[in-house]
């Protein structure tokens, strides 16, 4: 029992920090760079990805006995795509502004590398409880980093954070709202994270 509990917390910690998909695995970077122009959009993208990740991980884990080993990628794809489409419909119905702002990156969540990484590395070989905590940890880690990146970009590019003005508009640098600016800021965050974690990437 204690071992199971330890395993759950370890998976949560790994997803959150040690195997953070953005900082150390460099997965799902396309939406990270494209959507994180403001903290609000970044948080919405992170929350949406986390929801799809949790559902896919839990269902892959629960259904792993009926997913043939040779067709497991197809199984992940069908589940991830279905949850993404269903989520997209709910987003369009109840959060139309976010649906419009996130645009093409909402349906592209179906092919987000983070989901397949967690399904393959954890969900397919673990029980649903562990898969759930792994997805929650990974989702929070992903959402935190994308929101941090969005907040930094928003402050530098627009002088605001979550729409609240911090810096006068005349002192902003709009370059950071573009993809090259995002790459530079993300590189600094990754370098700092690697310095804190120490050692080499496995």
């Amino acid at each position, binding site marked *: 029992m204690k071992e199971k509990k330890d395993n759950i917390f370890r998976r949560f910690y790994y997803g959150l920090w040690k195997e953070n998909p953005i900082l150390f695995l460099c997965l799902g970077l396309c939406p990270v760079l494209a*959507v994180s*122009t*403001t903290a609000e*959009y970044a948080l919405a993208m992170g929350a949406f990805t986390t929801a799809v990740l949790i559902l896919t991980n839990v269902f892959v884990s629960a*259904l792993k006995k*009926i*997913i*043939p080993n040779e*067709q497991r990628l197809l*199984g992940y794809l*069908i*589940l991830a*795509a*279905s*949850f993404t*489409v*269903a989520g997209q*419909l*709910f987003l*369009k*119905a*109840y959060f*139309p502004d976010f649906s*419009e*702002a996130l*645009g093409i990156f909402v349906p592209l969540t179906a092919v987000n590398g983070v989901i397949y990484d967690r399904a393959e590395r954890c969900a397919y070989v673990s029980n649903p409880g562990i898969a759930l905590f792994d997805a929650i940890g990974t989702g929070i880690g992903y959402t935190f980093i994308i929101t941090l990146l969005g907040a930094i970009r*928003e402050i530098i*590019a*627009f002088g605001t954070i979550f729409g609240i003005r911090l810096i006068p*508009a005349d002192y*902003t640098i*709009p*370059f950071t*709202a*573009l*993809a090259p600016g995002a790459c530079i800021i993300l590189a600094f965050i990754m370098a700092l994270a690697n310095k804190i974690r120490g050692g080499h990437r496995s």
Partner: protein
Amino acid sequence: MKINKNLWFLIIPIFCIALITGSFFYTRGTIKANEAAKANGVISAVFPDAVRYSEATYNKRFLALYLEEHGYDTTDVVVDHVVYARNEQNAVKGLIIYVNCYKKYGGLIQMAVGIQNNGTINGYTILDISDAKGLESKVKEDDFKNQFIGKNVSAFVLSDEPHSDAEIAAPNGARDASGTVVNGINTAIITLEFIDESMGGLLE
């Protein structure tokens, strides 16, 4: 009879189809209502004093030729459709022109331009824009929009230091999108001229 193990795999697609179908039927009413509200919002934003609207019919090919004659590249800008804004007596007060503008470095801005019969700009609304999130909002802001409203010119141009009605200042960091919006509004002005001419001055 023993069922092939792989047949169990069919449960997943069946579950997924049920999930998507259920979500579609559950949300479609709300999505439709959102879209209708957005369309009404667009129309009332660019022509608030009109009470009726009707689709305008015109020859799209002739309009494209007319735009080309006036120096507009019809691969950069396409008039999607035109709506008449009418008053209570059913007289046409102006046009709402839906324009798709292709940006210099790729991307698309879809906009609706409200323009009175005499060529005065009522306003515009951005329907869709493919630009860096945040930067795109600069051409949606009132500071930029207000530069067009109430003006009656033959064409607008971007300028660093505007001195006349026709000159528009681009917001910092959104010069490309601003130029595209200016191009779209100029296209709407030419479209008004074309429709007026092709209707024999009905818009007077």
